[in-house]
């Protein structure tokens, strides 16, 4: 039975923790979202459940988490729609050899290194209910992911979007996002069809039909909505309702087919016409509600599932260090070497690698899917969450150190100057 008071208390506690920690992180010149992610971890067994287990059990009783989870899933569906909305395939055209090389390399290098890492981790942190093929593919994808929204905001805030570095970074991250989610979608289909005993060919057939329908049936309807928006000159509630309905139906269909609901939401965002102010208004309408209210719930649930206490003993911390080293080396190294080969200076190449190393919320979404479908164990989940936090946390200061402060000393802003400028929430 739903205890509304418990749910409201949970949401209140999570919101306060997320805003306070987010503010603290903004204060130390980090994206607010990292603070919110950390707040989620702190509300779980890693801190709150450890220092006040009874209070934690009172606020977050296990049998009440289903409602919180449902709300957070809605938030993630909206978020994935927004991630898709931010991707503009037309921007990928004509970006040249450099963008192609770096985008391919920034996926392939960490993916391959992740698969090699899986050879080491599989006998130690997996069990025989998951095959090596699924396990290694998942680790590969987890290493390859880049948080496109975080990267875009970092570049935007520093006025680098239209520089050579910014253009290559955005293109690379966009290709990276599409490739990463596509590989993960295939992996989820493989695992789920193996578990449920459904025909793989039939599932892929459904997925193919669904993609074609999205492109040739739904996209024209979305274009009509856009035309309606242009005529009216504003985003009406009916337009918003239609778009949300498309998102929910697409999420439902993709969940039914055996890929995750998130992919359906992402796809609607990706096929949405990207002209003019329509997308901008749509983004603004949904972003605040999703980011301020619903995403912190997802962070808290992720925190409740991750427990740093599971990393007991040097052996576990050694595995974590290994994961972190492989994640950083694969992403920064793979991208930087390719960018250098493509004609960038070492400093620019390194900066690009550092930007691509940010994993942020996108990685947390992926890790939760991995835990849900049983490909990774809770302790590996915890290690990967810590890796995602660390790589996201290190992006801004490392980028400033390598590129911003040294390459463009005149444009470098002091922390005081930066604090005086208004900054938005960063996903």
């Amino acid at each position, binding site marked *: 039975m739903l205890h509304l008071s418990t749910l409201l208390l949970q949401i209140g506690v999570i919101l306060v923790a997320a805003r306070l920690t987010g503010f603290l992180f903004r204060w130390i010149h980090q994206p607010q979202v990292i603070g919110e992610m950390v707040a989620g971890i702190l509300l*779980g*067994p890693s801190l709150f459940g450890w220092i006040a287990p009874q209070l934690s059990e009172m606020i977050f009783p*296990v049998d009440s988490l289903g409602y919180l989870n449902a709300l957070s899933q809605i938030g993630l569906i909206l978020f994935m729609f927004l991630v898709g909305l931010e991707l503009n395939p037309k921007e990928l055209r004509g970006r040249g*050899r450099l963008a192609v090389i770096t985008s*391919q390399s920034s996926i*392939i290098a960490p993916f*391959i290194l992740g*698969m*090699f890492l*899986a*050879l080491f981790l*599989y*006998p*130690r*942190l*997996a*069990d*025989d*209910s*998951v*095959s*090596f*093929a699924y*396990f*290694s593919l998942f680790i590969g994808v987890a290493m390859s992911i880049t948080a496109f929204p975080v990267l875009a905001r970092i570049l935007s805030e520093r006025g680098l979007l239209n520089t050579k570095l910014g253009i290559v970074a955005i293109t690379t991250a966009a290709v990276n996002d599409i490739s990463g989610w596509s590989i993960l979608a295939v992996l989820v289909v493989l695992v789920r069809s193996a578990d449920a005993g459904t025909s793989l060919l039939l599932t892929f057939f459904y997925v193919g039909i669904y993609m074609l329908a999205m492109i040739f049936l739904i996209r024209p309807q979305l274009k009509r909505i856009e035309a309606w928006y242009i005529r009216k000159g504003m985003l009406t509630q009916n337009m918003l309702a239609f778009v949300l309905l498309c998102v929910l139906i697409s999420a439902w269909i993709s969940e039914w087919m055996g890929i995750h609901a998130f992919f359906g939401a992402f796809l609607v965002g990706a096929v949405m016409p990207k002209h003019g102010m329509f997308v901008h208004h749509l983004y603004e309408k949904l972003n605040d509600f999703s980011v301020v209210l619903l995403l912190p719930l997802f962070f808290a649930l992720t925190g*409740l*599932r*991750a*427990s740093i206490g*599971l990393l007991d003993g040097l052996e576990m911390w050694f595995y974590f260090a290994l994961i972190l080293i492989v994640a950083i080396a694969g992403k920064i190294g793979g991208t930087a070497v390719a960018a250098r080969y493509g004609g960038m200076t070492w400093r620019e190449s390194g900066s690009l690698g550092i930007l691509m190393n940010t994993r942020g919320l996108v990685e947390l979404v992926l890790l939760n899917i991995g*835990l*849900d*479908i*049983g490909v990774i*164990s*809770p*302790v*590996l989940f915890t290690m990967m969450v810590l890796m995602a936090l660390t790589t996201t946390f290190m992006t801004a200061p490392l980028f400033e150190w390598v590129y911003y402060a040294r390459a463009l000393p005149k444009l470098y802003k002091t922390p005081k100057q930066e604090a005086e400028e208004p900054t938005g929430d960063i996903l």
Partner: protein
Amino acid sequence: MSETTKSILVYFSTLLGVGIIIFVVLQIGSKLQAPASVGGRWKLEPSNNQLALCVDLPMTQTEVTLEIHQSGSHLQMILPIDSTNLIFNGRLDGLQFNTMTGGDAALVFSGSLDRQSETDILSATLAGTDCQIPVSLIGVRMEERLLSEGGH
């Protein structure tokens, strides 16, 4: 050779190389053996009366369910007794497991997994200084995994 042809050759060579590497890693990995899967919920038998020789089991509790959280060979077993949980930590070695609670009056929960039968069977013994005699237990798997919860 034109620049374009060279680029296409490099691109496809790289793709081929990546494909070969993935194939080789998957081949090597398929020969690796991960620890046996014991994670999930297990219904413990026999009767509560025998279990009560080791732990304070209330008369109202009619069923004991053991939860096992697994990460590789690392195990965390949770035995809910009344409103408290007995937590055993330990390792799996092949099909044998050995776990114990923390604290002074440690309880040891050890045994083995039988995967020959249709349903996995856990044969275990609960022993410790507080136990009058070691208690033998048989566990029957209730479900495969505990996917949505924390723990080992």
